[in-house]
């Protein structure tokens, strides 16, 4: 495809805005303007494309219709999604992008007249974009299903999983090579699409729900690469730059995210394979006793403490209890109690998710402490108040090598003088494993909905 000098320069401007926007997105102060700059780049790329389109009236109508339907669907979904559900929303936006990338390559291949010759550059790029885009689409769909809890979040494993997946991957490689060298044509591309969808599903199934953010980040990088592949298919530089930027920065971000969780990417992606999950005997666990406290007991304990460290988790967000938590912290501070929030890197369902939730409740930024910053302070804390969190304080990550979360850095809540767990039930956390800390003699359980319990605690603290 040949572009006029004007179009090429405008595409260059769009690419520069993507780069500049991405750069600003990585610093807290400029992040929002970075996102807007990238969006401006997108508008420029979009408008620049329109005059060059060779269309029939029907195609123009269809295209406008697709865009006019897509805009409200995307905007309404993004505006109305609950903050707690943002991870699965990002997964679905990524999935549809991957799907679009795969479909663009398919159509470009369909357009080759039958019997016509296909250049190797075109066929290699088509195979690449179809496979990577379809894997991203199907993988994102499974990630969405797991995060939305339409499917259980624990790793799904079955005998022969790894060989079967390897076989599918090998079949894709063989078929891809055949499409490129022998020109088996359209049928081959459809088969590739199907196999890649299967691989996407099979690839994400054995990965646990708690690791899903890292998987979404990886699939995000995949979609970027598929888009870059389409850039080669269509000879369009703005697709190459945009797609490659996301592919490269997304790979880097994926690495940073898995580092924050203290896991190697390899272990995270393939850890569940061939390993029998050592689950503690649940019957034994049920018989063990926990100390169950009333809101009054806990309220008094908090009111007469000097230092309280709150460990917020996903349960807090689900119960929409961040405002009630803020009220409790205010009541305690009025009595001279120091309150801090210990934010685990993966608190919530994604790195940074908890910061967003607490920012929504106007919790002062200075009170949100990173794990490294606060971990030594638990020793001097009177109470560690764990609200709807579980895995991030599970000592199994330190002491039990068989555990799926072994090696993950955790908050040292167990070192506080008292530990209060606010939970709905004894149900294990997202990683699906039992937590020894619940049975610790220093631990008091406060069962119930986090919002109700916090409201009762505020009253109890004021009465104490």
């Amino acid at each position, binding site marked *: 495809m040949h572009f006029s000098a004007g179009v090429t320069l405008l595409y260059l401007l769009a690419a520069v805005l993507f*780069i500049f926007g*991405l750069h600003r997105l*990585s610093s807290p102060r400029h992040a*929002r303007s970075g*996102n807007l700059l990238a969006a401006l780049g*997108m508008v420029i*790329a979009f408008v620049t*494309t*329109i005059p060059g*389109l*060779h*269309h029939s009236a029907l195609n123009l109508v269809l295209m406008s*219709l697709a865009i006019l339907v*897509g805009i409200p*669907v*995307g905007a309404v*979904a*993004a*505006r109305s999604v609950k903050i707690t559900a943002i991870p699965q929303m990002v997964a*679905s*936006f990524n999935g*549809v*992008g991957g*799907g*679009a*990338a795969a*479909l663009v390559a*398919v*159509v*470009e291949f369909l*357009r080759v007249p039958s019997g016509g010759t296909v250049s190797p550059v075109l066929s290699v790029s088509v195979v690449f974009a179809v496979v990577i885009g379809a894997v991203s689409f199907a993988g994102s769909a499974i990630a969405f299903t797991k995060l939305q809890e339409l499917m259980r979040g624990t790793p799904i494993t079955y005998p022969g999983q790894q060989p079967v997946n390897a076989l599918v991957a090998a079949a894709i490689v063989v078929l891809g090579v055949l499409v490129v060298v022998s020109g088996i044509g359209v049928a081959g591309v459809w088969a590739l699409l199907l196999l890649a969808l299967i691989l996407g599903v099979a690839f994400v199934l054995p990965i646990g729900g708690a690791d899903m953010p890292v998987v*979404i980040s990886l699939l*995000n990088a995949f*979609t970027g690469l598929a*888009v*870059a592949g389409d850039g080669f298919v269509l*000879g*369009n*530089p703005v*697709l*190459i730059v*945009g*797609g*490659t*930027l*996301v*592919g*490269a*920065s*997304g790979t*880097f*971000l994926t690495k940073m995210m898995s580092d*924050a969780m203290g896991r190697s990417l390899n272990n995270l992606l393939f850890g569940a394979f061939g390993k029998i999950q050592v689950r503690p005997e649940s019957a034994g666990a049920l018989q063990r006793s926990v100390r169950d406290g009333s809101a009054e007991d806990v309220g008094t304990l908090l009111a007469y403490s000097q230092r309280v460290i709150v460990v917020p988790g996903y349960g807090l967000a689900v119960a929409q209890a961040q405002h009630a938590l803020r009220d409790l912290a205010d009541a305690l501070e009025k009595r001279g109690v120091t309150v801090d929030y210990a934010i685990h890197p993966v608190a919530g369902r*994604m790195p*940074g*998710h908890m910061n*967003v939730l607490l*920012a929504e409740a*106007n919790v*002062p930024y200075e009170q949100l402490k990173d794990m490294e910053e606060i971990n030594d302070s638990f020793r001097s804390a009177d109470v560690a108040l764990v609200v709807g969190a579980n895995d991030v304080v599970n000592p199994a990550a330190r002491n039990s090598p068989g555990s799926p979360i072994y090696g993950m850095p955790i908050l040292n809540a167990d070192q506080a003088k008292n530990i209060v767990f606010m939970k709905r039930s004894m149900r294990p956390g997202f990683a699906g494993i039992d937590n020894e800390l619940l049975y610790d003699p220093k631990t008091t359980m406060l069962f119930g909905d986090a919002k109700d319990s916090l409201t009762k605690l505020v009253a109890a603290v004021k009465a104490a």
Partner: protein
Amino acid sequence: MSAQLVNEISIFVLAVFLGFEVISKVPTILHTPLMSGSNAIHGVILVGAMGIMAAAHGPLQDAIGFLAVLLATINVVGGYVVTDRMLEMFKSRNPRGPSQP
């Protein structure tokens, strides 16, 4: 190898390095917004999907092209809006004025 292909490969290789360098050090709290923001950027596939749709021949290509434009539009619009929504909350972090150190 055509001149155009050589150009494209050059752009690709430079963009790889740029992609690694441009986000160097990101605080954990920005991991999610950054992922979401870059997710919106790969929505640039919309430009490709529009080209495909415009040039499509026959019902099959029309249908796939339509689907591609629709999905890409959702990717772009949803991606930017949801990212802005996340970042909006960081901005309104401290409306009660700076707290005591």
